[in-house]
């Protein structure tokens, strides 16, 4: 009540505006500042909670996994959008209400408009955006995850903010517009144009062409909205808190213009080594390095502005937050420049390194700066409470949490990058991340606690009297105000308020002009080049997705799958070696919007066509750990009717979509790879090891295998140590299907047809076992295991041999053999062949192929069971009703007698 009365008095005193040079102060909308400030803190707590839940799911994938609205992907969408709109958006708006009257000597345009913006921003954008994402309405584009209907209101809000905050700047004369105002005008104007383009164009331009625009927006969101507003805060709070002018306004201007010119040109560095033209990629890389130089300029200016004020940085809580933000800005920007460079990018891109980088940017730079500015403003709001002790705690909680998170994720990224180039199985890189992801979860706790304590700091403590900021800011020294040494009024050009004032120049050159420039140079021009390339290289036969596949694609986007699985094979050796041919522009010409992705937790899916059986996919989707025991992928059980064998329409369509990925490229054959440009071809021709990064794992080369049968099973001598290694490899890779006891009863068993084999119930020839491991079993869910290295394959082979059924020597009387051979010839030979080699006349049309009894000997019990029941999911029927018990017993012994340890097999031409 007291606050409201104070505010009312304040407004009554300040609402009369009498021209630009009025001695009276313009109105400051303290109540709007407070509402936006509290909204910022509430939304950052909710957004951080989303982040904590996401981090928890990394460690406990089944945590909160039972409902469609709480999947990892949706929570991830809401985490980033909440930070962007809810936390930083509200904090920036609060700052604008405070600073615009002080920089322009005019109030924000309208209080009524202010309340409209508040409700629009929080109750039409943030809250509905979160709800819609959880309900399955979203856009699978980074920093653009809220659905298009919400985007419409975001654009409306930005237009209203232009009226509210930029309009007062337009009549400020040249020579009087402080750099904080430049950043507010430039940032708001640029974002008003960039936001709809970045969100809408990828929906209209498919694949690679849309990705060029997505890349721009990813960077514009951070670089042209978050960064300008945060720098505006830093440039404002530092001189006010130190009561000294900034070191150089000229340098701040240089920094401003270079930032607005260069930052928009950075975007494509998110798609280095992609199908986007190399010229655009190189341009973005050059701009990224140039940007680092600009940031050095800006940060130097800001830190020099703090010279002689180190005591205040320690004592003044808002200034301490700002100082931290400035240092983080330098670090994250230099990091960004370095990671855009191609040799670094190929190593760390898609990894947790980038996640550490983005948290350093959004928490270290933007959030610390926004928190510092909010604290500064709060300490100057008449009647507001301000708890300096809580703020101090908040600083350290946030700093400790962020430090731990960034160090952890940076190290994690380096480990991931190393494993990805090493040819280790993909799942090894996931397993290696377990401790890092746990540390990341732990680091999130002090961060969310820090934001909570910060909010408490704004709600508790003594109320401010109506006094200056420095007087009430704890520890702030009462130094002399800034002097104007050497500046006489005759020296400076007091510009006349003019329609051609600085704000107009900023709005049209920095805000609009540089927006147009960047979208032409890195959006429209590459898109035209890509279209020409597509026209030249696309196969005439290329078909768009079917309706079911298209629906599956929507589900893929809706569930946030693209945040773990990229759909682009980059033009680098290690990507091609692991996944297949690099993604060509023409392959993406029906992708509305592109789903290339910027992060890999699971493997790339661009070449998924034909790689695994549908059963495997259904089982994996129902319970990922059934087929990949170490997976952290969330299950999607609600897409099934109780079991992996009963997918509903969503699951059917999603798997249909996955099945389509890479299909057109495969059908195009060699013609599909001719479009790789010369710059990329050079990248491909340079071997990775020549760049000094050693290959860490021994490998069987594919070329070597084509020439010779896989020999790892036969060449390795029995070795007890290998059995232990083999058991570990088996548990990590095989147990989900074949069971931890190798009895065929793994978790995935019910969903896979034919069911996984019972390894204990059969004996395999060494060569056959090796072939199955190397090639998989076509027509079943048994995949090829070529990603395992030779030592692992040897080890798992020996392990299987240690418990498989022993060879049974069968002796049959001539009469029995004769009878059995007649039964076999009458009923089995068309599939299994004359000599049981699985090469009967019908075998070629069957999948999986009929069993080759020469290399695979079932135990008597197993053979009997199959003859009685058949093999579900294969063409092997049940013979119980067709053959007598005696005939079946003869057949069991007969097929067992065919086993020769692969000797006949090896003699075949």
């Amino acid at each position, binding site marked *: 009540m007291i606050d409201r009365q104070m505010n009312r008095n304040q407004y009554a005193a300040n609402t009369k505006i009498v021209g630009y040079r009025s001695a009276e102060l313009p109105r400051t909308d303290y109540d709007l500042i407070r509402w936006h400030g509290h909204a910022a803190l509430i939304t950052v707590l909710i957004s951080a909670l989303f982040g904590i839940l996401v981090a928890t799911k990394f460690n406990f994938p089944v945590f909160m996994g039972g409902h469609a609205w709480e999947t990892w992907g949706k929570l991830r969408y809401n985490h980033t959008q909440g930070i962007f709109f809810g936390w930083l958006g509200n904090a920036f708006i609060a700052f604008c209400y405070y600073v615009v*009257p002080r*920089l322009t000597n005019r109030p924000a345009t309208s209080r009524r408009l202010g309340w409209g913006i508040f409700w629009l921003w929080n109750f039409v954008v943030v809250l509905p955006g979160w709800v819609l994402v959880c309900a399955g309405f979203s856009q699978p584009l980074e920093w653009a995850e809220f659905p298009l209907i919400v985007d419409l209101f975001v654009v409306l809000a930005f237009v209203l903010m232009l009226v509210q905050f930029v309009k007062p700047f337009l009549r400020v004369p040249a*020579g009087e517009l402080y750099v904080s105002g430049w950043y507010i005008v430039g940032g708001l104007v640029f974002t008003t144009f960039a936001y709809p383009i970045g969100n809408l164009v990828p929906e209209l331009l498919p694949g690679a062409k849309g990705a060029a625009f997505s890349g721009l927006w990813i960077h514009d969101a951070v670089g042209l909205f978050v960064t300008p507003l945060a720098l505006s805060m830093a440039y404002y709070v530092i001189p006010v808190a130190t009561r000294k002018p900034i070191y150089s306004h000229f340098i701040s201007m240089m920094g401003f213009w270079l930032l607005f010119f260069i930052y928009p*040109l950075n975007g494509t560095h998110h798609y280095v080594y992609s199908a986007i033209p190399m010229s655009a990629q*190189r*341009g973005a890389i050059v701009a990224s390095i140039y940007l680092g130089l600009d940031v050095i300029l800006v940060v130097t200016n800001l830190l020099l502005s703090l010279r002689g004020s180190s005591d205040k940085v320690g004592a003044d809580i808002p200034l301490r937050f700002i100082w931290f933000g400035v240092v983080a800005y330098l670090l994250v920007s230099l990091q960004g420049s370095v990671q855009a460079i191609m040799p670094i990018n190929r190593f760390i891109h898609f990894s947790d390194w980038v996640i550490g980088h983005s948290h350093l940017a959004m928490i270290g730079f933007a959030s610390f700066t926004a928190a510092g500015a909010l604290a500064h403003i709060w300490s100057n709001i*008449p009647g507001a409470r301000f708890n300096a002790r809580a703020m101090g705690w908040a600083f350290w909680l946030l700093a400790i949490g962020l430090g731990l998170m960034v160090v952890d994720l940076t190290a994690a990224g380096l480990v991931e990058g190393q494993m990805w180039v090493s040819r280790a199985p993909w799942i090894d890189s996931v397993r290696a991340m377990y401790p890092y992801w746990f540390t990341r979860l732990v680091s999130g706790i002090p961060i969310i606690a820090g934001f909570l304590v910060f909010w408490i700091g704004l709600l508790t403590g003594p109320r401010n009297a*109506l006094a200056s900021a420095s007087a009430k800011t704890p520890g702030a020294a009462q130094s002399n105000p800034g002097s104007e040494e050497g500046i006489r009024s005759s*020296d400076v050009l007091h510009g006349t308020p003019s329609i051609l004032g600085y704000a107009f120049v900023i709005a049209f050159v920095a805000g609009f002009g540089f927006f147009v420039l960047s979208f032409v140079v890195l959006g429209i021009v590459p898109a035209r080049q890509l279209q020409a390339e597509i026209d030249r290289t696309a196969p005439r036969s290329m078909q768009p997705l079917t309706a079911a596949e298209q629906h599956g694609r929507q589900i893929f986007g809706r569930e946030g799958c693209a945040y773990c699985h990229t759909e682009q094979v980059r033009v680098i050796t290690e990507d091609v070696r692991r996944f297949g041919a690099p993604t060509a522009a023409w392959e993406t010409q029906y992708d509305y919007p592109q789903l290339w992705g910027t992060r890999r937790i699971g493997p790339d899916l661009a070449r998924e066509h034909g790689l695994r059986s549908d059963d495997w996919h259904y089982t994996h989707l129902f319970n990922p750990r059934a087929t990949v025991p170490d997976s952290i992928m969330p299950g999607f059980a609600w897409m099934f009717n109780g079991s992996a064998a009963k997918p509903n329409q969503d699951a059917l369509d999603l798997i249909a979509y996955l099945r389509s990925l890479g299909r057109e490229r495969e059908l195009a054959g060699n013609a599909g790879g001719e479009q790789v440009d010369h710059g990329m071809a050079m990248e491909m021709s340079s071997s990775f090891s020549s760049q000094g990064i050693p290959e860490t794992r021994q490998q069987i080369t594919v070329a070597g295998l084509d020439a010779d049968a896989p020999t790892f099973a036969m060449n390795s001598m029995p070795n007890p140590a290998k059995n232990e290694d083999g058991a570990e490899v088996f548990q990590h890779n095989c147990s989900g299907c074949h069971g931890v006891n190798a009895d065929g009863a793994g978790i995935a068993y019910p969903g896979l047809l034919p069911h996984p084999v019972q390894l204990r119930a059969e004996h395999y020839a060494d060569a056959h076992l090796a072939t199955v491991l190397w090639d998989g079993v076509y027509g079943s869910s048994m995949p090829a295991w070529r990603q395992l290295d030779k030592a692992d394959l040897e080890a798992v082979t020996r392990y299987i041999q240690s418990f498989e059924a022993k060879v049974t020597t069968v002796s049959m009387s001539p009469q029995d053999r004769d009878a059995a051979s007649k039964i076999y010839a009458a009923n089995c030979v068309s599939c299994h062949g004359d000599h049981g080699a699985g090469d009967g006349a019908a075998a070629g049309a069957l999948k999986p192929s009929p069993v080759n009894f020469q290399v695979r000997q079932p135990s008597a019990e197993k053979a009997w069971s199959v003859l009685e029941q058949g093999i579900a999911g294969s063409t092997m029927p049940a013979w119980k009703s067709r053959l007598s018990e005696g005939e079946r017993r003869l057949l069991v012994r007969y097929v067992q007698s065919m086993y020769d340890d692969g000797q006949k097999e090896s003699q075949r031409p």
Partner: protein
Amino acid sequence: MINIIVGVITAIAAGFLLFWAFRPSFRKWVEQPKYKMLKEERRFSEDQRN
């Protein structure tokens, strides 16, 4: 094209630097807002105090 653009902006930045170095009145003019900003802030503070 990106190289041309970066080259041009570098040249313009260098031009501004030279202008700043050789025109004292420009230096004073361009630094004016940082003093004006503090003066305005002081006005608000004093008004609140009163």
